[in-house]
Every structure is written in structure tokens, then in C-alpha cells.
């Protein structure tokens, strides 16, 4: 059969950073997938060497719009280890709390994106409405919906009042109720199960070999979570389960993220219950003693790692960042293989790359004729939804029933 090559990207809204996927098709199936990365390289590692440790916190917080607290925490805990600082327990608890609130906002965002990519748009509308609850909380605590600027070297910058803690507790109750319903939908609705099962399959052996991180790996039975394996902040004091699933497909990735939301609510309740009184930060020196440290953090998308080398001055000698998406992109190529073109949007979205607001065109190249056609991401999504509707998976009914239920349990 003739093969057709389709370049996707570098710019479109389902990708965290602009990336370019080259899909080689045999009929409607993806035969091979390649990729070109780096379109959004901003030279941050070099820029860190030219700034002070304190300035670097704010720079690194902007590596990712969603995992901002993840990157700043990963960096400050490296610098604190270099400087030999003991962060007060209350500071560590607040760090943990913000990290888990960030996980809720990230996972609910993903749930909406996944719903949208398969044509289950009421799920997008409601999960994003629920996400506003946690965005409001973060805004109340830090003054910002993203880039919270909570971390500083030696602790956190803002304390929490008893009223804020009470407010968090109430909001978590509401979110838990909604998440339980999402889990019910995910485990009982035949349409959703049929649409997501066996899509984007990645075997356990491949996930281990390719280094799949976070929920992407855990949905393939890779039982790794830095929060449990290499505890940081206040995680050593928390009791929680690492959610692992053996479906190895997009359905499994959905179940893992929903399950993690429930664990996150439990962690937040433990933080609220156990949070000790006392100072939230210790004073940090401007000059950091020479040395090198490797720091890990379980971001919503998987393991985030930073390496920091100090030369004894107020600026680092080297800062190295590896964000989880880079670890997961190796797996995407494998997941796309042998899937239908109609499933490409949900497979790419299922590793949870961040959302960018740029919508550009896909060029479709017909290898036989050498002709170049153009398909926008939105068109590819529509094509996917229509393709599955013709094959018996139609979300119209579920969309209606879902919104009926949601209107009844307004919060």
C-alpha cells in the first residue's frame, strides 16, 4: 500500500510547546511517527547562569505555565540543600499544599481537553468549571491563578490564615463530590470506555524502556512516584496510594488521573489537619556554597528533575532542567504507531502536553502525487469525531445526559 506522510505542527493547541510530528500513514493507520522538537527553546539554562539564585526562581517558575510551582520547588529545594538550609515544617506543608492544588488544576484541565478531543464537550465545560474552584483558591492564597510565586530559598513567601485553610477544606469537599461522578462516568459509560480503550497502547515493557513518566507510565503499570520513592517537602508525613493501572491505553491514563485526584484530596486534608504552627521560612544567604545537587519533584505530568551546580557566588555555575514532557515524548511515537489517524489528537493529548493558544495549519502531503493539502487541528479533531461516529461511537446522547446530571448538582 502507498504510504502518505503527514506533518503535524509545529504549532497547534494540543501541544505544550510547539512540536512537529511526522506521521507516515498506510491507509487510515499510522505506520510510523517521528518528531522534531525545540521550537520553543528559550535558553533558560543559560539565562539562569547569568542571574542570581533569587532571580532564577522567578525565571524557572515560567518554564511551564501549569507546573510552575513544580519547577520552582524543584529548584529551591536543590539550592536549599546546597546552602544547608532547614526549611521550617510549616513552610514544607504549605509547599506540599500548593503542589497538590496545582495537581488538581492540571488534572481537571487534562480531563476537559481529553473530553474535547473525543467530542465529549460537556465534560470539558463542567470539568473546567470545577477547575475554577481550585483556580480561585490559588488566587486567594497567592494572588495569582498561575505562577504563584510562593517559593523562596529557605521556605515560602506567604502564610495561610485559618480562614483560608477552612475555605480550602470546603472547596475540596465540593471537588471530591464532582470527581466521584467523573469516575462513575469513566467506569460506567460504554461510549467513553469504547472510545478510549485500546487507543494509544504502550506496553509495560515499552513504557519502562522508553522511560514514560508520571500518569503516562503509571497507566502502563510502571509503579513510580517521586512523592513516595524519594519524598520531598512534607510527603514523608503523608499517607497516600500511588495509583497504578494496567490498561496501558488512553482509558488507563484517564483512570490514573481521576484516581490521583482522589488521593490528592486526601493529601490536602492531611495537610490541613497536621499543618504545624511556626515560621514559614529561614533566611538564606545571597552566596551559595560551592557544590552540586540533584533534585526531583513529582509534577502533575511526571518526574521533573533539576541539577544545580554552585561555584560559591550568588549566581549558579550550571542549572539543568528536564521537564516530564521530554521524557514522555519518546513514548508518544510508539503510542501513535498502528493507531488510526482519527485517534492522533487524543493519543497526543493523553500524555497531557500543555495548552497553547496558537492554532496553525497541518500540511497533508500525498506521497504518491506529491500534492500538499492543508488540514487545521480543528479539522483533524472533527475528522476524528466523525470517523468514530460512523463506526458507532457517538457522544451526542452522553453529552445530553451528562449536562442534565450536572445541572442538578450545581455547586
Amino acid at each position, binding site marked *: 500500500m502507498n504510504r502518505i506522510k503527514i506533518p503535524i505542527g509545529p504549532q497547534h493547541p494540543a501541544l505544550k510547546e510547539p512540536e512537529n510530528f511526522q506521521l507516515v500513514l498506510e491507509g487510515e493507520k499510522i505506520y510510523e511517527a*517521528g*518528531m*522534531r*522538537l*525545540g*521550537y520553543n*527553546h528559550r*535558553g533558560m*539554562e*543559560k539565562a539562569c547562569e547569568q542571574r542570581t539564585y533569587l532571580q532564577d526562581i522567578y525565571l524557572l517558575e515560567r518554564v511551564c505555565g501549569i507546573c510552575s510551582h513544580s519547577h520552582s520547588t524543584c529548584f529551591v529545594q536543590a539550592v536549599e*540543600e546546597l546552602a544547608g538550609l532547614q526549611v521550617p515544617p510549616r513552610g514544607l506543608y504549605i509547599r506540599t499544599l500548593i503542589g497538590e492544588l496545582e495537581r488538581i488544576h492540571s488534572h481537571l484541565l487534562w480531563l476537559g481537553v481529553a473530553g474535547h478531543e473525543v467530542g465529549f464537550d460537556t465534560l470539558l465545560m463542567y470539568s473546567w468549571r470545577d477547575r475554577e474552584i481550585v483556580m480561585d483558591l490559588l488566587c486567594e492564597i497567592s494572588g495569582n491563578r498561575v505562577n504563584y510565586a510562593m517559593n523562596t530559598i529557605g521556605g515560602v513567601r506567604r502564610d495561610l490564615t485559618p480562614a483560608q485553610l477552612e475555605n480550602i477544606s470546603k472547596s475540596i469537599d465540593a471537588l471530591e463530590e464532582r470527581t466521584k461522578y467523573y469516575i462513575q462516568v469513566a467506569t460506567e459509560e460504554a461510549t467513553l470506555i469504547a472510545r478510549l480503550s485500546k487507543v494509544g497502547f504502550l506496553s509495560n515493557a515499552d513504557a*519502562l*524502556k*522508553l*522511560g514514560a513518566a508520571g500518569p503516562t507510565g503509571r497507566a502502563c503499570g510502571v*509503579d*513510580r512516584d*517521586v512523592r513516595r*520513592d*524519594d*519524598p520531598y517537602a512534607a510527603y514523608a508525613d503523608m499517607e497516600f496510594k500511588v495509583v497504578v493501572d494496567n490498561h496501558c491505553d488512553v482509558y488507563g491514563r484517564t483512570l490514573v488521573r481521576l484516581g490521583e485526584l482522589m488521593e490528592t484530596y486526601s493529601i490536602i486534608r492531611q495537610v490541613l489537619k497536621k499543618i504545624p504552627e511556626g515560621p514559614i521560612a529561614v533566611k538564606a544567604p545571597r552566596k551559595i556554597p560551592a557544590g*552540586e*545537587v*540533584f533534585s*526531583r519533584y513529582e509534577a502533575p505530568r511526571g*518526574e521533573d*528533575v533539576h*541539577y544545580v*551546580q554552585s561555584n560559591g557566588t550568588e549566581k549558579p555555575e*550550571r542549572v*539543568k532542567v*528536564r521537564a516530564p514532557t*521530554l*521524557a514522555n*515524548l*519518546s513514548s508518544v511515537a510508539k503510542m501513535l504507531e498502528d493507531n488510526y489517524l482519527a485517534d492522533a489528537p487524543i493519543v497526543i493529548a493523553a500524555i497531557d502536553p500543555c495548552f497553547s493558544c496558537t492554532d496553525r495549519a497541518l500540511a497533508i502531503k500525498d506521497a504518491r502525487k506529491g500534492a500538499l493539502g492543508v488540514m487545521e487541528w480543528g479539522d483533524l479533531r472533527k475528522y476524528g469525531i466523525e470517523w468514530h461516529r460512523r463506526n458507532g461511537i457517538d457522544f451526542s446522547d452522553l453529552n445530553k445526559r451528562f449536562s442534565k446530571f450536572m445541572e442538578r448538582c450545581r455547586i
Partner: protein
Amino acid sequence: MAKEEEISGQIAAKFPFLAGQVKIQRARRLWADVPADKFMELFSCLAREMGFSALCTITGLDAGDFFAFIYHLAKDDGIVLNLKTKIPKSDGHWKSIGEIFPVGIFYEREIADLLGVKFDDLPPGPRYPLPDNWPEGQYPLRKDWQGLPVTAPAKGEAPGE
């Protein structure tokens, strides 16, 4: 720290040149300097036989007359071994570990682009992360790099293009 000491002992038993050389920085953090000629054998053994099943990343460093590489290897129980090796900058050739950890190919391409290290056995593929039209011989993560040379715009070309 019993587990860390046990691992340090196991490494020293298999590779006597590392006896007493594995530094335990704190719980779950080990560091070791390895000569370049012994590196691949040790790396392969750690990944395939000693349970270091994840490569967190590879850090490339410009260390004066040398390029240094730190391979951050993790075990499932949270222990990280930071394996450091270095090669002379004048040579600049190093080996790929892509066969053991395919994810490492991304990390190696990054080091090749930003530091100018040549990985001899990297599979063919697009560069990462610099653009395709990035000038030859410009390696941003080298300490002496001062930014791209400023050239006068060619005739008919708008400034800044």
C-alpha cells in the same frame, strides 16, 4: 543509609577502581567519578544488572578543557546515582547510550547542540533543540559563548530578519 552503603559496596566489588570512590551525599543520593574508558562497561552493568532502571537525564557541563557528563540514574526505591565522567574538549567525541535508554537520545542531541559534543553512534534524526538554520560552531552552553555574532543585514534584507 544502609541501602546506600550496600550499593556502594556492590559497585566496588564489581569495579574495584571505584572502591571508596562512591560518595554518599545524603539519603538516596550517590555520586561517582568514572574514567571515560571504563564508563560504558560500568553504565551498562548498572542499568542492566544492578537495578538502575531509569535514566532521569544527562547533564552536560563545560568544565574548562573538558566536557563533563553526569548521568542521573535512578532505582525504583528512589536511590539516584549521579555518574560523572569527562572527555577532553580537544577530542569532543563521546558514545551514545541510546541502545540502553532510548530516551537518552533526546538528552544526547541536546548536549550535542548546546555544547558541541559529537556523539559517534547517535541514530540519524532531526537536531534538538536549536533551529535548523542555527550557524555552525555556535554552542550556547559553553562558558565562553557570548551570543550569536552580529552581522550586517544582507542587501535587500530588512534588519532583524
